[in-house]
């Protein structure tokens, strides 16, 4: 495996006095698709927020191209080439689809113009028809497409996707996941936070499983067995569901 593009080292994160992450070692290489699975509250979203600088962490705990970036503000991380599709989509309501996308273009990471409005419209053709509509008038699936397109227009080298299948119909999920290979083929590394283990396993090269703020399993997605995942997902002593 090549040198990691983005990595965390013994990452600890706190919400006030409550410790949410206990020494996470995580890495993703350029062009790789990594899945992050685990039950609700396992710390997956916290890990993404800590990487993005939305939660304060020590500088050495997060590295981009080997350089410490922990504690840098979110907009700085975006400028350095880390993009995120936040949990719950978090679109800019009251603004049109295209204005949502233009905000990302206005603030994209420098040195790379791989993603253009035309390219994201080619990826999600429905958005081109809806580009003048207010985002809140779109369906859930279409809103998720806007969120992915918005993050891509930040020109990230690594794209963090927080539960992009949540609350969507299976057909729509497939539509969005169909875009993953073409994103990673363009050289963008992807981190998929996902509760649907089957979906995550199929879409990723490697996976990490988290439980109660710790990584309990890591390996090539094709190699890990359902039994291993079950044990890591629910903790030892729980029967396979």
């Amino acid at each position, binding site marked *: 495996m090549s040198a990691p593009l983005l990595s965390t080292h013994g990452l600890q994160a706190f919400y006030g006095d409550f410790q949410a992450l206990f020494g996470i070692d995580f890495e993703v290489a350029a062009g790789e698709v990594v899945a992050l699975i685990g039950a609700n509250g396992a710390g997956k979203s916290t890990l993404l927020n800590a990487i993005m600088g939305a939660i304060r962490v020590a500088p050495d705990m997060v590295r981009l191209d080997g350089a410490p970036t922990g504690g840098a503000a979110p907009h700085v991380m975006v400028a350095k080439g880390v993009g995120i599709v936040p949990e719950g989509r978090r679109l800019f309501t009251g603004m049109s689809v295209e204005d949502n996308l233009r*905000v990302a273009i206005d603030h994209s990471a420098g040195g790379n113009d791989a993603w253009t409005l035309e390219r994201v419209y080619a990826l999600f053709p429905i958005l081109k028809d809806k580009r003048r509509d207010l985002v809140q008038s779109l369906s859930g699936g279409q809103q998720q497409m806007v969120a992915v397109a918005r993050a891509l227009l930040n020109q990230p080298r690594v794209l963090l996707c927080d539960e992009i299948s949540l609350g969507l119909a299976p057909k729509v999920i497939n539509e969005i996941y169909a875009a993953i290979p073409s994103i990673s083929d363009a050289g963008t590394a992807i981190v998929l936070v996902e509760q649907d283990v089957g979906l995550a396993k199929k879409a990723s090269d490697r996976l990490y499983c988290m439980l109660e703020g710790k990584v309990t399993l890591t390996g090539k997605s094709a190699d890990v067995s359902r039994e291993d995942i079950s044990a890591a997902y629910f903790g030892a002593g729980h029967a396979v569901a």
Partner: protein
Amino acid sequence: MQWLDALIQGVLLGGLYAQYALGMALMFGVMRIVNISHGDLMILLALVGVSLAVSFSLGPFVLLVLLVPIAAAIGYVLQHAVLNRVVSQDPLPSIIATFGLSIAMQNAMLQIWSADTRSIPGGGIEQASWQVGPIFIGVLPVIVLVVATALTGGLDAVLRFSKFGRALRASAADVEAAALTGINPKAVYAWATALAVGILGFAAVFQGLRSTVAPSDGPAQLIYAFEAVIIGGMGSVWGAFMGSMVLGISQAIGFRISPGFGILAGHLVFLAVLAVRPQGIFGRS
């Protein structure tokens, strides 16, 4: 005919109020905060304007060119040094901080300029008027209204079409998501306040030309700006503009009914709007 006159004078007065209200609408729309020293800042700028005009015998236009950048710079510094520390879901810190600032500013101005009322010399423009039948229309109030309309249209265009405007609207909609899309919220906030206080620079010059200013006048201007924003409907700059017109007309008509009733009439229209149409006359529910 005197009611038509009141209506016209009210609209012209509304032009001045719009220049107070735009900045408040902008700051609340983007940050959900109200700067209680908004009116005091305007008075401060006007008093600085008076001193500059008198010391260097500057005309109104030169004064505008000087004062607006000064105002914007004050706004930028105010946001960085004070307001960025108190922007939060909880309204308390920002109210208390700007309330303290307001008290300090009023009293500091009192010491520097004394309690006297002053005005900016306009070189005759403040007395000039056109006569239309029995009604006199002041040249200066018309200029104020035209400038207010231009400022409102300009601000609306900036919000709609510019990169900065998109960043403002995105931060207003969801500031955390905006940061995750590469926007630096504190920088956007600082420029928003620079813009809001910059507009107060126009208001200060016109207030100083049209009538008088004294250090204790700020709170009244704050209240007019607030009433205009609420009457018009929160969340749009044209709403603030139209609210200013309604407030100006209410005060002018109230004043015709009885001189002691003018300001009160404005307050009562504000309360009536709050009672029957809390989203504002031009606001969406």
